[in-house]
């Protein structure tokens, strides 16, 4: 009996492998226009109005890392990508997903603009003048107050990164709600909310220390929605320096 599910699983895997080669995306002008419209509604909030990237990566490239072929692209659109912010598109029909996929593929046919700037100089500014490593980690080196940037170049566009540096409050990443907890007794704590339910809240301060409070023990709880603990670098870095830091961050990809 224990063997049966394994056999079933391998049968499914075989079926799936068999279907992968058969995917053919629609190619008519009407399909691409409809795909573009679907993209605007479902995808543009993160990938930009023309797929140029924003909070999500640019799709204007001939090769997509999670979607080497059209079957994989459809799977990504349908199910999302586990462990990332990319959700599945529950609201599109099979046909609509194929139209959206066809439009995404058409984006990769235009030549991609490289991110300008000098990544090596950017890395120096990141570690030196910018003191970014005080709060951010790259491959295990740096602080924990802000998001880990080891692979940030894969998920954020250059324009988005630039905006995050000059105006951190423009888009505070998910999971980085800044809160101040004033307990009935003891010192108050300011930090990132790491968890909360109806009865308790857990907070991590900029040093990486975690705190837990029962809500009944709290005198005041301030949630600074839309606030970022990160300072703005507007005026702190020159335009050329900013361009170089963005080039460095855009170069940060998963190590192969």
């Amino acid at each position, binding site marked *: 009996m224990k063997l*049966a599910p394994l056999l*079933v699983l391998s*049968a*499914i895997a075989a079926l799936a492998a068999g279907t992968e080669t058969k995917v053919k995306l629609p190619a008519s002008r009407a399909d691409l226009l409809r795909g573009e*419209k*679907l993209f605007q*509604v*479902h995808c543009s909030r993160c990938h930009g109005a023309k797929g140029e990237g924003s909070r999500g990566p640019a799709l204007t490239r001939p090769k997509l890392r999670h979607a080497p072929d059209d079957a994989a692209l459809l799977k990504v659109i349908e199910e999302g990508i586990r462990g990332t912010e990319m959700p599945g*598109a*529950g*609201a*599109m*029909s*099979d*046909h*609509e997903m194929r139209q959206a996929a066809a439009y995404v593929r058409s984006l990769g046919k235009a030549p991609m603009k490289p991110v300008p700037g000098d990544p090596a100089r950017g890395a120096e500014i990141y570690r030196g003048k910018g003191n970014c490593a005080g709060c951010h980690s790259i491959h295990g080196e740096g602080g924990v107050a802000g998001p880990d940037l080891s692979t940030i170049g894969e998920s954020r566009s250059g324009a988005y990164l630039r905006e995050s540096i000059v105006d951190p409050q423009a888009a505070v990443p998910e999971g980085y709600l800044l809160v101040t907890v004033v307990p009935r007794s003891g010192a108050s704590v300011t930090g990132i909310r790491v968890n*909360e*339910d*109806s*009865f308790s809240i857990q907070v991590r301060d900029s040093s990486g220390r975690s705190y837990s409070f029962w809500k009944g023990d709290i005198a005041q709880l301030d949630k600074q*929605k839309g606030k970022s603990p990160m300072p703005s670098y507007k005026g702190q870095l020159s335009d050329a320096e900013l361009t170089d830091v963005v080039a460095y961050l855009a170069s940060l990809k998963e190590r192969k």
Partner: protein
Amino acid sequence: MRSLMWLFAPAALLAQINVPYERIRDANKEPGNWLTYSRDYTGQRYSPLDQINAGNVAKLRVAWMRQVDELDTFETSPIVVDGTLFITAPPNVVEALDAATGRTLWSYQKDLPADLRLCCGKVNRGLAILGNTLYYGSNDAHLIALDARTGSLRWDVTMADYKSGYSSTGAPLAVKDKIIAGMAGGEYGTRGFIDGYDARTGKRLWRFNTIPAKGEPGNETWEGESWKTGSAATWVTGAYDPESNTVYWGTGNPGPDWNGDVRTGDNLYSDCLIALDPDTGAKKWHFQYTPHDMNDWDSTQTPILADGMAQGQPRKMVVLANRNGFYYALDRTNGKFIAGRPYVKQTWASGLDEAGRPMRVPAAVPSTEGTLIWPSLAGGSNWYSSTYNPKTDLYYVNVKEMAAIYIKGDAEYKPGALFNGGGQTDYLDEEPYGAVRALEVATGQLRWEYKLHLPSNSGLMTTAGGLVFGSNGTSFFALDAGKGALLWRFETGGGGGIDANPISYMSDGKQYVAIAAGHALLVFGLE
């Protein structure tokens, strides 16, 4: 006297399980058992037990737990008969457990077809028992009868073809000598039904199609051939009034869910409460909550039968807090609207007219660009149980305060494939939250609320001990039924949170409370 004998049956008699119809009908005579989905036929999910009460609930501790082997959502509502607890569990498992120790007495599993497609995982919400036979809906749309003493198969009948998108997830209802069962698959362009089966043989005696065929009254509320794929699924257990011999069963959304263009009309009997004769399956009356629904607001949650004063008259009511955001009290003898009002924020209707029909806001419909509407598709509440306490005369509902951006998309039907016609994206600019709300049963007027951090996904149970048990996220808690104060809470740590309804029972003279949380059944008793 016979029921008393069962109530005090010693542990040695565990194997003598026998639950004739009369025991379910008279469930209040044996408050220590939980003989049907909602304990009794009223759908109230009220336990007359009071050993655990407002004075001692703070001492509630885990007595035992039973973990399940697969990670699908665990939605079972156990039934308990004379010291044995029966559950359904993913993946398509039925188990008998000793109610005092949690030790397994037997386990049954039916393998599911590899090409089975389910909208929402291998979920199942529970069982029915009649005599010494257990009944449950297998995920592949079969109705299965098992020997309650051993778990051996009595019969297995096909309700519908799973390849066309049909499935079964709800607990059947045993009424007299029949098993009443609904179906699931409302997102696959199915045609809904409620069935009556001979409990002994599994022979189907009648079928009430929730969408009338060509030539039948109501079919004119569907454009063209759209009735054939109109869904109106019946995936949650109904209630029964023995006095009038009437079954009350809810129906789900019309298909495709979010694109109403292809099915203009009221789309009967989607989003309805149907009153049926359980002997013949004949419809006595229906009440449609959301005519021409475009938001996936199934009306399948268990209706609650409650008697009380409404507008100065004693009334026999059937009440529920609908997924569409409105609370409704109907006269259960004729289906006429008594009262209704919003119990959460809603922006799609300006109110209900004298007959209880919503007055739609024309712009508040899904669009290709997306339209912001309260409540979200998950509704103001959902399939999980509300509860009514005759002692406080209050109706308790676990609510979701959240909106969604509704998108209208393609509606192309392919057998066995999802037939949604759009969907929703979350709207988080106003932070969603939940609450337990206590409503006056005859009017829906808010009496109190206990605010919760998250929108809730789980049911409530109230007890004669003056308590309301409920869940939020991974927390399980008890509130004071009179005032709504928090009296006890427990962090279950359940993976995926709690998506089930609580029950309560007695074993060896001790009261327990049980809830499926994450991937385990947790059973609590006083320390």
